């Protein structure tokens, strides 16, 4: 599969179809990969794809707006590309999406497959310009059972749970930095005039930061779990992002990065909009 991938990229680079290819390369040990930016045909030998390729490379699109890019995407990364195109962060013509068939990645911290791979419907990528490899059967439909289970807890229990989680937060902003849709040139969390958020690492302020970030990415977050993977203190952000996806689906029948023509729920108004949040 690596060979197939390298040949494809080599071809694209020599034909000058793209300036960059963004993929994965081996990092310091066999369980680690890191993003690789390849500009010449000779360099393509670095590129690999395996079960440790956990990063969502869609992140780099917003940073390389002007170039023509070949981007290696797992099936679950492709909605990110669509969402960013929709938000006019770059034009679709400037990116060639190379879908890599994936049988699920491994989180090297736990040595297990993350939750998203366990109920993944896109092991064989959909909507890519080129696809490499073939995945084993991937018919599992996505479900929100774990979120629904969590929702059953009482408000107090939920609050206690999150208070404990956000106490751990060290405000390193890794979750924001790896988030492909958190591309604001100047994040509210670090503004000083006015100071939307206190810069102290403090349980309450941390909670505010995460809640505001979640509100900002509602209807835009493609639930790629990059934030969850990046968190150095293991805050289960995936529970929140998945809740966002669930609410978008259930309240507005909207799925981020799915339909290029659908308007995001928070920037449209319809008389039939649910008002469950309004007292």
């Amino acid at each position: 599969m690596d060979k197939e991938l390298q040949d494809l990229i080599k071809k694209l680079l020599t034909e000058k179809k793209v300036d960059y290819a963004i993929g994965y390369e081996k990092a310091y040990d066999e369980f680690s990969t890191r993003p690789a930016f390849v500009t010449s045909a000779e360099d393509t030998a670095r590129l690999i794809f395996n079960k440790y390729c956990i990063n969502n490379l869609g992140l780099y699109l917003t940073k390389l707006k002007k170039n023509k890019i070949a981007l290696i995407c797992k099936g679950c990364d492709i909605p990110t590309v669509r969402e960013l195109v929709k938000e006019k962060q770059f034009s679709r013509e400037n990116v060639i999406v190379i879908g890599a068939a994936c049988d699920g990645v491994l989180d090297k911290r736990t040595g297990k497959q993350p939750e998203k791979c366990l109920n993944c419907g896109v092991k064989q990528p959909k909507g890519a310009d080129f696809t490499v490899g073939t995945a084993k059967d991937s018919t599992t439909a996505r479900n929100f059972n774990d979120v629904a289970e969590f929702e059953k807890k009482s408000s107090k229990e939920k609050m206690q749970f999150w208070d404990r989680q956000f106490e751990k937060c060290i405000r390193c902003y890794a979750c924001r930095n790896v988030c492909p849709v958190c591309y604001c040139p100047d994040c509210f969390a670090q503004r000083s005039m006015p100071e939307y958020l206190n810069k102290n690492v403090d349980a309450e302020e941390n909670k505010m930061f995460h809640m505001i970030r979640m509100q900002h990415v509602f209807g835009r977050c493609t639930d790629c779990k990059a934030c969850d993977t990046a968190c150095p203190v293991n805050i289960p952000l995936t529970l929140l992002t998945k809740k966002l996806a669930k609410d978008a689906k259930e309240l507005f029948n909207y799925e981020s990065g799915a339909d290029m023509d659908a308007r995001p729920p928070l920037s449209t108004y319809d008389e039939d909009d649910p008002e469950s949040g309004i007292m």
Partner: protein
Amino acid sequence: MARIGVFVCHCGTNIAGVVDVTRVAKYAGSLPGVKVAVDYKFMCSDPGQNTIIDAIKKYGLDRLVVSACSPRMHEATFRRTAERAGINPYMVEMANIREHVAWVHSDDKELATQKAMKLMEMAVAKVRRSEALSKMFAPIEKRALVIGGGIAGIQAALDIAGAGYKVLLVEKEPSIGGRMAQLDKTFPTLDCSACILTPKMVAAAQDPNITLLTYAEVTEVCGFVGQFEVKIKKKAKSVNSKCIGCGVCTTKCPSKKALSEFDEKLAPRKAIYTPFPQAVPNVPVIDRTACTFFLTGKCKICEKVCPTGAIDYTQQDEFIKEKFGAVVVATGFDIYDHSNYGEYGYGEIKDVITGLQFERLISSTGPTAGHVTRPSDHREVKNVVFIQCVGSRDEAKKRPYCSRVCCMYTAKQAMLLKDHYPETQAYVFYIDIRSAGKNYEEFVQRAQNEYGVLYLRGRVSKIYERANKLLVKGADTLSGAQVEIEADLVVLANGFEPKKGAKEFAQLFHMSSDQYGFYNELHPKLAPVETAISGVFVAGCCQSPKDIPDTVAMASATAAKVCALFAKEKLEVEPLIAGVNQLTCSGCETCYNVCPYSAIEMKDKEVKRGEVRHVAEVLESVCKGCGACVGACYSKAVDLKGFTDRQVLDQVETATAPITDN
């Protein structure tokens, strides 16, 4: 450092009766940046304003807080005061301690005073961050759109045109004239309605400044005062401009299935028709839902008989888009449909008719040429019962309002009946008589005393059909007796209700309407013809039921407003609008998508040297300052002038801090 002056108003006892104003002023004096804090009986009065001006000069103030009434009431006043004293008018903040405190918290003076102190403190926090803003100007398209060709629309159009401005008068029906054209005589003078209306219709048609557009509807509106862009649908008339109005087509048309809207469905009309003989313009239209040719593909008689070849079956609906500086909405009313009044036969008894149908029956241009006969068997009538307040003053029918004209038109109709047929007897069931207006009460008295109309105070409980007669059962509450009248005809005084589709129409302009659907004026007393949308005015019964004199007065008032607007060289625009910091804009187009006024433009722009980015820009003359974009922007690149995030957050912070009053 800011130099702030705080001025606390007593508003007589309106505020001072509840709030300890001296304590508020004393507390204000202790706040950082506040150089002077005083209280005064009426800040808005001349001496009150002079106190402010003197304080500005004496203490070198550069910003003001006025703790008084709602900014809707006097913000403009105090901005002008500041301007007179040489301060930028946008350095003024108001703390509303009347509506928000004194009027709603009169039960707890201590807490009310604390709230007043807090609101004042918040205003101080906000004004500290205020920035000087300057007024902006926008061009005005000096052309008015009048929607609705009834007497209100005609009058407004004539008056605006008389001042020398161009007017486009749009009417949905094939002719202008509206409801007034349907009436026979008008109260209280009993002059012929058509005789006084027709000259106005003709004048409107002949005025070089007025363009008539009949059989047309407004479908889309964008823009704002001075620059409305309106899309109008010209419905296909199927008759082109060669028509000379000879009427041969109408005479020869074989189709008689459709019912005449003008005659209130009392008579059939042809498929090609003008609504009434004096129609303006006198050009017929083909009703495609009734025309034999459009239904079956055969006929074309009108085309054959037309001497000028004016019939055009291929005509299509046409859309035009034009610009206007101001709009007069005069869309009129509908008559209440009494089919949900069980006691009056659910609208199914043929000889129970509406007041407007009676107008058509007694009118010499009506279907019976002025002979009042029963619609069921065309027999002449002897006893006629009039019932008032049908769909008016009736809580159960969700029409609790008074329609204002029914008492008068019933008296008029009873008199006309007696005039035409001296041997008839008219009975009127009423709740009470409302005849406020010049010569109105005398008119009703005349109906009773000279014409012998029998007024019975009470309601009708049931109408039966029995042996070619209608048996009307009711109560006469004055004598306490139950009455039964054998009538030949029952005329209901149907009230007014909003035109069908009034709410949808209001949405085109973002106008608001009341719970019934009548359009809301800006202020019930002081701005009765303006709406919340600047540049859009209302006239006539679309705003509330009213009689002809009131309608004409209101229409002329809208014309005065339009002319006042057009007399200005340029339009002053409030600078309280959004602005984008393009350095922090990520170009995600969220603001562009949420803006209800299309006031955001996306541009590729060099934001830093050598860095061209896709960013948002606010079109200053289009922005209304609603703030939707500010809330939507993730990167906080948009801010609302006069309500910046810094100001609002400072207010929030102040609001949540305890009062340090000692």
